[in-house]
């Protein structure tokens, strides 16, 4: 532009200035539509998936005995009982193991840890663990709990494996809840002469509990749908005996996988019925979590 001849500036700028407004606006419209379609495509597939599963499995789920029958070689007699009991057992053990450890770790990192190398290392470590594929946790469980501790392919081993899997999620969620507690609350407690643990247990944790519960439910619901690590640890889909802590076990997603991988076509509907139960369970869990968050968020 610098070497334009000053004698005739208008013709030069006329030559260079092409706003092309029409084309650019049209490109804009196309781009906007493309973005909307991208968003719609994901939502459409979600809807398609849900409709497909309900069509395949809804009637099968309503058949008598679906919730009370054991696993079976015959599709029409196969039921969810052992898998459902297994999942409930896993859920209870999972909560007993992972919640104290996870919340304890979160309290340590937020309230106790000074900003030194160790706490930084622990933080990076937790972030890293969240990115490890779930099947690798299965190998960890197989190597440590099944072989090293000689537990074998039992329910406790599966529960411990899933606990390690959800621990990073619980720690991250609990830390966020604890961080949201106002500093003034702690200072008031110290000012009245409370010890550190008294402050944490009587003031910080009660204030943070709705957030922690929400985080725990969402984290744990991920474990309920996990299949791969349980396969590796040794869960099986053909059990007829009641599960126990030191017995072989099944779980909802394991049972569904077992039904999917059977060649007979009848099992497709049974698998879909199992999926509906699993999805409803997850929906209820996450719904509860969101309800708790909204119900108690007035505190903040």
């Amino acid at each position, binding site marked *: 532009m610098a070497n334009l001849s000053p004698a005739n500036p208008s013709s030069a700028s006329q030559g260079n200035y092409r706003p092309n407004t029409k084309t650019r606006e049209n490109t*804009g419209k196309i781009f906007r539509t493309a973005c909307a379609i991208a968003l719609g495509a994901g939502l459409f597939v979600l809807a398609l998936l849900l409709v497909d599963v309900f069509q395949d499995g809804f009637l099968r789920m309503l058949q008598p005995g679906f919730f009370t029958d054991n696993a079976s070689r015959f599709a029409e007699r196969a039921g969810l009982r052992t898998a459902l009991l297994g999942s409930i057992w896993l859920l209870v053990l999972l909560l007993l193991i992972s919640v104290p450890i996870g919340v304890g*770790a979160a309290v340590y990192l937020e309230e106790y840890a000074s900003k030194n190398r160790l706490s930084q290392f622990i933080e990076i*470590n937790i972030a890293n663990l969240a990115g490890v*594929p779930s099947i*690798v946790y299965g190998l960890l469980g197989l190597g440590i709990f099944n072989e090293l501790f000689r537990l074998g392919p039992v329910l406790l081993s599966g529960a411990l494996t899933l606990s390690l899997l959800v621990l*990073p999620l619980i720690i991250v969620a609990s830390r966020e809840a604890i961080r949201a507690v106002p500093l003034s609350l702690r200072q008031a407690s110290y000012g009245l002469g409370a010890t550190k643990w008294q402050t944490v247990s009587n003031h910080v944790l009660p204030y943070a509990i709705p957030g922690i519960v929400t985080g725990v439910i969402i984290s744990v619901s991920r474990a309920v749908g996990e299949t791969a690590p349980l396969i590796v640890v*040794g869960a099986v889909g053909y059990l007829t005996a009641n599960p126990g802590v030191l017995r072989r076990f099944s779980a909802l997603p394991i049972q569904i996988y077992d039904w999917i991988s059977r060649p007979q076509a009848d099992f497709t509907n049974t698998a879909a019925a199992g999926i509906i139960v699993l999805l409803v369970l997850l929906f209820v869990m996450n719904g509860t979590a969101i309800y708790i968050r909204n119900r108690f968020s007035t505190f903040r």
Partner: protein
Amino acid sequence: MQTPNPPISILNKRESTLEKRASRGVQEKIIAALLLCCALVSVLTTIGIVVTLFEVTVEFFQEVSFAEFFLDTRWTPLFADQHFGIWPLINGTLLIAAIAMLVAVPLGLGSAAYLSEYASFRLAAILRPALELLAGIPTVVYGYFALTYVTPLLRNFLPLEIFNALSAGLVMGVMIIPTVGSISLDALRAVPLSLREAAYGLGATKREVTTQIVFPAALSGIAASIILGISRAVGETMIVVIAAGQQPRLTLNPFEAVAAMTAYIAQVAAGDTPRDSVGYRTLFAVGSTLFLITLLLNIISYFITRRFREVYD
């Protein structure tokens, strides 16, 4: 967070003398130590993963040479004619992951662009959680969907095998949309409004602002989201084991059945392998390879967000 500008001494909690005094006493020390132990469980988990994986992997490599593992082109450890070449499994994993990313990147970025630049705040507040539902569906359900819906649908006009990389990859791509979309959306929203306003002031259209100003400014977050998506695709098990099959082969044909690393682990582990068998050792050798690949991807993503993040006020 609530007081607008607390003095430095309060911000720096460790310096507070009241707090120091409150942490004296034996009981307090014990509790602090117990809580530290809880935090160390996560470190132990990492050590446990590394030690268990590599302990058995070392045993594996006493039997099978590195050269065979990385140069052989067949993977048949459980057949009479044993071959231990990892490439067919890596091939399967990468083929499916590539198809998945071809779906997830455009759809994820398009969704993020729409929610950040076009949708009203209220609409975005409804649509974002709806899109994130995709991430909450168990992967075994996606596997079912791929095998019983997508494959039969595509077989109407494509010469697909029953188990194939294509439908597994497509469905996995849908699963990864929220991973790419959500992180990119946060990155797009972090771009300051002043940048957009400056571009509008120069006469740019909305599309030009989005693709030439906002996207480049958010590039580190977008790149990190894509790499994290690849990492999830590589580590995903159930879709692959249900819909893509169990044939380890070197192929780029998405219509054929392939075996991914995760699928091999799940398949072999499902049929109880005793501790002292070749099958058991291959599980951990493949697991180590998988772990190293995802670790590398996660580190790259961490590095990108750390190093290349544009910081605005």
